């Protein structure tokens, strides 16, 4: 799943220009424009059919399912809001799962943005070797998350090399994957390692496009490197920052692979995220109606958070360059 807000933004920015070009009375004489509806349908048909059958249809079906008691065995009937009511009032761990997911997302989001921005700025100031360092930090992003998590499991497992290192430097912390208080940190660690490279590249690319003349002018006026960062670079890369934040939030709310491979949601339910709960309710205990209700709670959170971010961007994102 992915969203491209940066390009969306280009679109809206381009719209007034395009409409200005077509003056009243003048006819738009681009031949391609004469393309008929029928022709468009032919070009669109495969995509439209595929999206309708495998995305829109299932999306609607899942909402319908969430109002049923669908299980693999037994008769299915509509139960109204029962699943949602049960989730919010009876389910002993739903609130804990929700809290885990939101805590995880908040912590991961902040750490991811800070880390990727720090490394991106660091690399952008290097005189040589930018490419090699960018490649190094990007390497894990194209690898199966499950594989990454299993490698980390070997490192973090009781008796593994991580415990030995921590003991070596005198840090007395419990084992990360078997301790209920720490297990979520293991998931954060693995997610960070495997995926902060995306945002690092995104911010790195944005930093490269900051005009050197701005920085030179600021330097002449006596701005320190620190001031240049906060007053010039950060505002100029804010569209990318926004894009990365929205995307990272959407993805981290859905976290599943690394939880499955590292902890199976445990110990207990310490690392059970909404994504993992949907899987285990749906495909371990086969309560498909109930799992669909959890899925729609997740979807609702994603929609609300994205709407909130789109709203808040007016306050801190600068599009004029």
């Amino acid at each position, binding site marked *: *799943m*992915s*969203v*491209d807000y940066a*390009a969306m933004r*280009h679109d809206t920015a381009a719209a007034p220009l395009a409409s200005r070009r077509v003056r009243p009375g003048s006819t738009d004489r*681009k031949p*391609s424009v004469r*393309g*008929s509806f029928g*022709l*468009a349908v032919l070009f*669109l048909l495969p995509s*439209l059919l*595929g*999206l309708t059958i*495998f*995305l*829109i*249809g*299932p*999306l609607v079906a*899942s909402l319908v*399912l969430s109002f049923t008691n669908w299980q693999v065995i037994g008769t299915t009937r509509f139960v109204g809001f029962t699943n949602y009511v049960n989730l919010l009032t009876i389910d002993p761990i739903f609130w804990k799962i929700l809290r885990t997911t939101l805590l995880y997302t908040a912590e991961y989001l902040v750490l991811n943005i800070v880390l990727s921005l720090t490394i991106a700025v660091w*690399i952008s100031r290097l005189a040589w070797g930018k490419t090699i*360092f960018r490649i190094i930090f*990007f390497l894990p992003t*194209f*690898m*199966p998350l*499950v*594989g990454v998590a299993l*490698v980390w499991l*070997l490192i973090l497992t009781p*008796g593994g*090399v991580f415990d*030995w290192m921590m003991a070596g430097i005198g840090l007395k912390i419990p084992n990360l994957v078997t301790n209920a208080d720490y297990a979520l940190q293991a998931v954060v660690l693995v997610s960070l390692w495997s995926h902060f490279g*995306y945002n690092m*590249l995104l911010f790195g*690319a*944005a930093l490269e*496009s900051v005009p050197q003349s701005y920085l030179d002018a600021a330097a002449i006026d006596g701005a320190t490197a620190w001031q240049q960062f906060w007053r010039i670079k950060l505002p100029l890369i804010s569209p*990318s920052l926004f894009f990365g934040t929205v995307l990272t939030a*959407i*993805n981290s*709310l*859905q976290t*599943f*692979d690394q939880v*499955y491979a590292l902890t199976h949601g445990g110990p207990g339910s310490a690392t059970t995220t909404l994504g993992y709960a*949907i*899987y285990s309710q*749906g*495909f371990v205990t086969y309560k*498909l109606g109930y799992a*669909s209700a959890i*899925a*729609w709670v*997740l979807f609702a959170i*994603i929609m609300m958070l994205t709407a909130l971010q789109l709203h808040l961007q007016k306050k801190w994102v600068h599009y004029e360059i």
Partner: protein
Amino acid sequence: MIHGGIVVAAMVFLFPFFWMVSNALRRDAEIFAHPPIFVPETLVWKNFVDAWLYLPFGRFFLNSLFVSATVTLITLVVSSLAAYAFSRLRWVGRDSLFVVYLGTLMVPQAVLVIPLFLMMGVLGWIDTYWGLIIPMAFSSFGTFLLRQFFLTIPAELEEAALMDGASHLRILVTIFVPLAKPALGLLALFTFTGQWNAFLWPLIVVNGPDHATLPLGLTLFQGQQGTQWSYMMAGATIAMVPGFALTVLMHRYIFKGIAIGAGFGGR
């Protein structure tokens, strides 16, 4: 000075890779040795052969390759056609439909997998290549990415072709596709790696070793009698080779793609 710090950071960062390869190449007895052994006494290359034949991991590799390549191919064709309609043809409702396309990018996969699973049951596609491939082959991301690129192609090119009597399909294939090679390459890269790494859907739709993909296979090394760590690490190393190679070979593309805000796909 500035380089010293980042070199240290990079070395710490690369440690999991080192640990993966070093554990893939050691005897089982050395895996949990205390104190840990960093470089195995003898390099057991045979682990790779054993892991390949064990589950059968080799089959998982080929399954992943086939599924990822097929999904990529379908995505490229379907997205090019749709992107052309969205960028070069004018029709009623185009812009509204495009907003719907954008909206679908927000839908989490977790919402779709339950109905898709039931649908696969009806179609008889559970534990088949069909089930692995077809539901994953239609994403509005590709349409969106290519549309952005097609919009940058000058209209004069197709005007001339239309004057000469070329059809729109011909224009797409002979003018747009060659010009959009960078965007198509990027889309192929992100689709392929996205499928190569995909886990949730294969976990749900696959039932046995016949159609298991690589990420699924990796988890199968965690058996009843404990985890086969050295085989698992050998398998993980194999699973990471394509991503490693693509990152190194195509880093310029990736960096540029991300620079135009297009580089987010997969997962």
